[in-house]
């Protein structure tokens, strides 16, 4: 064969390629660690909300509790109901976890940087810069529902089936409001690329009339609608119908144990991180400070992480503060209030964009 492999070797060994591969691993493991941190945060916040101490025996202040949880789950017996559909029963948690991780690939978390001169040219702090990034996140998240629906169906148990049915109805209903809230940020950013949308929030708006460039200000209701629909999309309280304990035992994952259950658990927390990260990038200015400031990229990343952490805290705070809705209330709220509000918001934002540009 006269084919030269030298270009391939050059490509693989170039610093930029290596940097991106390292970056992807960093994102992947950070997501897993964030899920572990969230488990601890959830238990601690719940404890404080209920005036308890929470886990405090494993490690200092209970910081190693997630590790103990993971070990416990690993060593549990893997059970499968006899009447379950073999392939789909094991495919469902894999779909859940895969879609949760995959959605994060296109989400940027910092300005371009050369890592203090370590690299010949700046790289984007993002798995991959795609020009339809917002839609890709939306598409992959909408694939995530299959994990839950299939888990409900394949378990061949009535509680699981009811949980799966509820989740598909709920996600279908709230996806519309979610998409329309995304559309308001897309209109303001005049782009479908997350990086361009974030960079559109760096300056002031209307020639300094509004001192901050965050899309939160022109589309405040868009942000509120996005967060409500995001909570419903991730099946968290007060919209956690697919796993309503009092009615459905544990909903779609009633029949799952050990690592298959852990994958659903992991997927739920990573979906929370994805929704919060997307909200940060679309409405809270990403790594930009509220007012134009030119600090270095580490502060940008820190800023981004703080915003995401606040939104995640908000999630947990909601869960331990608000009671669950009734199912008919969920449906009438989604279709009769949230969706019309989202449509009005998009029309207003679009009118504003046309008027001021």
């Amino acid at each position, binding site marked *: 064969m006269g*084919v030269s492999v030298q270009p391939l070797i050059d490509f693989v060994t170039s610093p930029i390629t290596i940097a991106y591969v390292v970056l992807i691993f960093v994102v992947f493991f950070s997501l897993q660690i964030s899920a572990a941190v969230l488990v601890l945060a959830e238990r601690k916040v719940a404890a404080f909300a209920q005036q308890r101490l929470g886990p405090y025996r494993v490690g200092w202040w209970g910081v190693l509790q997630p590790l103990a949880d993971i070990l416990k789950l690993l060593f549990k017996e893997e059970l499968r109901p006899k009447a379950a*559909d073999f392939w*789909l029963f094991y495919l469902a948690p894999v779909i859940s976890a895969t879609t949760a991780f995959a959605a994060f690939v296109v989400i940027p978390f910092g300005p371009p940087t050369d890592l203090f001169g370590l690299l010949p040219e700046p790289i984007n702090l993002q798995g991959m810069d*795609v*020009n*339809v990034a917002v*839609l*890709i996140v*939306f*598409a*992959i998240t*909408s*694939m995530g*529902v*299959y994990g839950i*629906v*299939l888990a*409900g*169906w394949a378990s061949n148990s009535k509680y699981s*089936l009811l949980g*799966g*049915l509820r989740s*598909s*109805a709920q*996600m*279908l209903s709230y*996806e519309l409001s979610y998409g329309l809230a995304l559309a308001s940020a897309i209109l303001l950013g005049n782009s*479908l690329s997350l990086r361009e949308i974030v960079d559109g929030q760096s300056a002031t708006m209307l020639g300094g009339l509004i001192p901050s460039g965050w899309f939160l200000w022109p589309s405040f209701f868009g942000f509120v609608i996005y967060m409500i629909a995001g909570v419903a999309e991730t099946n968290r309280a007060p919209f956690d119908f697919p796993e309503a304990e009092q009615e459905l035992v544990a909903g779609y994952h009633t029949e799952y144990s050990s690592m298959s259950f852990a994958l659903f658990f992991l997927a739920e927390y990573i979906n929370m991180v994805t929704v919060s990260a997307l909200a940060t990038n679309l409405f809270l200015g990403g790594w930009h400070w509220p007012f134009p400031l030119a600090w270095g990229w580490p502060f940008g990343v820190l800023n981004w992480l703080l915003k995401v952490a606040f939104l995640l805290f908000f999630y947990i705070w909601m869960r331990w503060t608000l009671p669950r809705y009734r199912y008919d209330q969920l449906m009438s709220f989604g279709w009769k209030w949230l969706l019309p509000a989202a449509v009005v918001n998009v029309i207003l934002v679009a009118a504003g964009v046309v008027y001021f540009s």
Partner: protein
Amino acid sequence: MISLDAILFYLFGAVTVASSLAVVTQRNPMHSVLFLIGSFLALAGLYINLDSPFTAVTQIIVYAGAIMVLFLFVVMLLNAPREDVASPYGPAYVTLTTGPRRAFALLSVVLVVELVLAMRQFVSASQPSGPDAAAHVSSVRQIGIAIFTDYSLAFEATSVLILVAMVGAVVLAKKRL
């Protein structure tokens, strides 16, 4: 030396064809729906290979996402039975009498002929190439301008059609409004 594009095309094409075949050969309606989703996803891969990520993502959101969830929902709600009931002639003969069977056979012949004609036309037509063609397909702005200027009549007609279908569905489902 075979290019990467070609390898990906044959890969996604093979997955699309194989899962589409599996859709009609599966006895379990749930598995059929899943293979249909797989086929749609592979089709999205083909669109990406054609440098039109927007079409690919729309394909996933609309077909693989929204519509197939509805399919799954219906299959789960109706609890459709497996089609492997015992029959001396095989499962397809259980429900169909001679008349519909002939009609279906005729229809499939027509479809195959149409497919062959369409493919011949496609192969003979000169394909647009170069950076301009790729930019035209992939740009959301270009698609939007085309829909609302050149194809505005078709677009409006389609939206009216969908509205009529929606109102019709509500009227049919609700006995008393």
